[in-house]
Structure formats: structure tokens, C-alpha cells
């Protein structure tokens, strides 16, 4: 029987979520780049244009989902890379919770920004 070489936890769900978010991000990241660099040009950005896009519920929802999946995929990717490099024990726990805290800050700030564009009230 082959040995288990992977540094991922056996039966872990994070491995699967990393792939599910990857499949989503492949499409949405390409769409994001195409829309904001090729359809519209970055140097033509105005607050009013960003607001008009975000006031559409489907676009707002897609961007919130984009933020959540990108944050998870990116931060979990960083964590996996550090674990692969041999991070263990207390350092591993410290890195894990630092990354969780950074993710929360990013998500809160991202949602606040999206709400500011869309004209929604943010309670934090």
C-alpha cells in the first residue's frame, strides 16, 4: 500500500473547499479583470460608475461572494504553504489565528466598502 505523503489532514474539508472556491474564482476573477480593465478602463474609474454597478443587487451579491471566496482561498492557501514548509505546534496555531483575524478584518472592510458604494447602511 502506498504511503500517505500529503501534509493535508486526512478527511479534511478545507482541501475540498480550496478546490470549490478555485473553480468559482477562475471564472469570476477572469470576469473581474475583463470588465474593469478591458470593457471599462481603470483610469476612467469614477465613484458614480462604481456606485451604479454596486447598486445592482446581482453585481453586489457576486462581489460579496467574490470577496468571501477570494479571502478564504488566499488565506487558506497561505496557511497550506506555511504548513508545507514545516510549520507546526504553537507557531502553527499562532499563524492560524493571525490569518483568521486578518481575514475577518479584510471581510469587514470589504463589506463596508461594498455597502458604501451600494448605499446600504453598515452597522460596524
Amino acid at each position, binding site marked *: *500500500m*502506498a*504511503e500517505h*505523503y500529503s501534509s493535508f489532514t486526512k478527511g479534511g474539508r478545507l482541501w475540498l473547499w480550496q*478546490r470549490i472556491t*478555485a*473553480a468559482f*474564482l*477562475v471564472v469570476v*476573477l*477572469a470576469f473581474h*479583470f475583463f470588465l474593469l*480593465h*478591458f470593457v471599462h*478602463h*481603470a*483610469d476612467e*474609474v*469614477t*465613484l*458614480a460608475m*462604481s*456606485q451604479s454597478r454596486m447598486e445592482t443587487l446581482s453585481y453586489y451579491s457576486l462581489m460579496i461572494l467574490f*470577496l468571501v471566496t*477570494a*479571502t478564504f482561498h*488566499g*488565506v487558506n*492557501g*497561505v496557511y497550506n*504553504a506555511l504548513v*508545507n*514548509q*514545516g510549520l507546526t505546534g504553537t507557531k502553527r496555531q499562532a499563524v492560524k489565528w493571525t490569518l483568521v483575524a*486578518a481575514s475577518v478584518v*479584510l471581510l469587514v*472592510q*470589504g463589506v*463596508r*466598502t461594498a455597502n*458604501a*458604494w451600494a*448605499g446600504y447602511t453598515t452597522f460596524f
Partner: protein
Amino acid sequence: MSQSYNRGLIEDFGRWREFSAGMWAWVFHKFTGWVLVGYLFTHIAVLSTAIPASQGDAAAGADVYTTTIVALESLLVVRILEVGLLAVAVFHILNGLRLLLVDLGIGLESQDKSFYASLILTGAITVASVPTFLAGVF
């Protein structure tokens, strides 16, 4: 009977001369991933200028969000970094698709070829997009 195999620390970059195409794909995927996650935090920080801009009554085009983006986009170095960001994102997307296929057991025999194809396609898309990214900066 199983045979033990000590692979060593596979993430030992000091062994880069021994790396195969698959290992280079792994290294590039990690590197581009680090760049993208770093950019994500920077991106949200810059876009956060929309929060005070939305609250103010500034005349259109004179708010802090619009002026920040326009000022950044007027810099050649920012445009060049954006081309670099596109290259990094395109490679991460194409190699990510390749990894998803490999995870599904598709194209295992040609995974080195698909890595080279990812590199070539990334180069082609990046070069083709340079005029779009540099438009209006000169």
C-alpha cells in the same frame, strides 16, 4: 509489501536544479498565490476610500475615491505593475485549471505539457494586453 521512501523536505528550494516541470508549476503557483493574496489586501485598502467619498457631498470627480484611483492610474509604474498583476493572475488561473484537471485524474500523462501551455498562453495574453493597460498614461 510497502516500501518506505524518504522524499526529504520537498519544499526545499535549495534543490531547484533538480526541479521537474511539475515542481516549477508548484513553485510558480505558490509565488503567484502570494502575490495575489497580498494584492487582495492592498486592493481593499485602496477601494476603502469609497467609504468617506460616499458620505461626502463632493462634486463628481473630486471625491477622494475618484482622485485616488485617477492619481494612481496616472503613474507609469502602476500601469506596469498592473500588467505584472495580470500575468500573475492569468498564470494562477490557467495553472489552477490544470491542477483541478489533475485532481480529477484528467491529463495526468501530459501535465508537463499543460504547464508549458499555461506559460505560453500567459505570455501571449500578457503581451496582447499591454496596449490596453498602458492606454492614456503617456
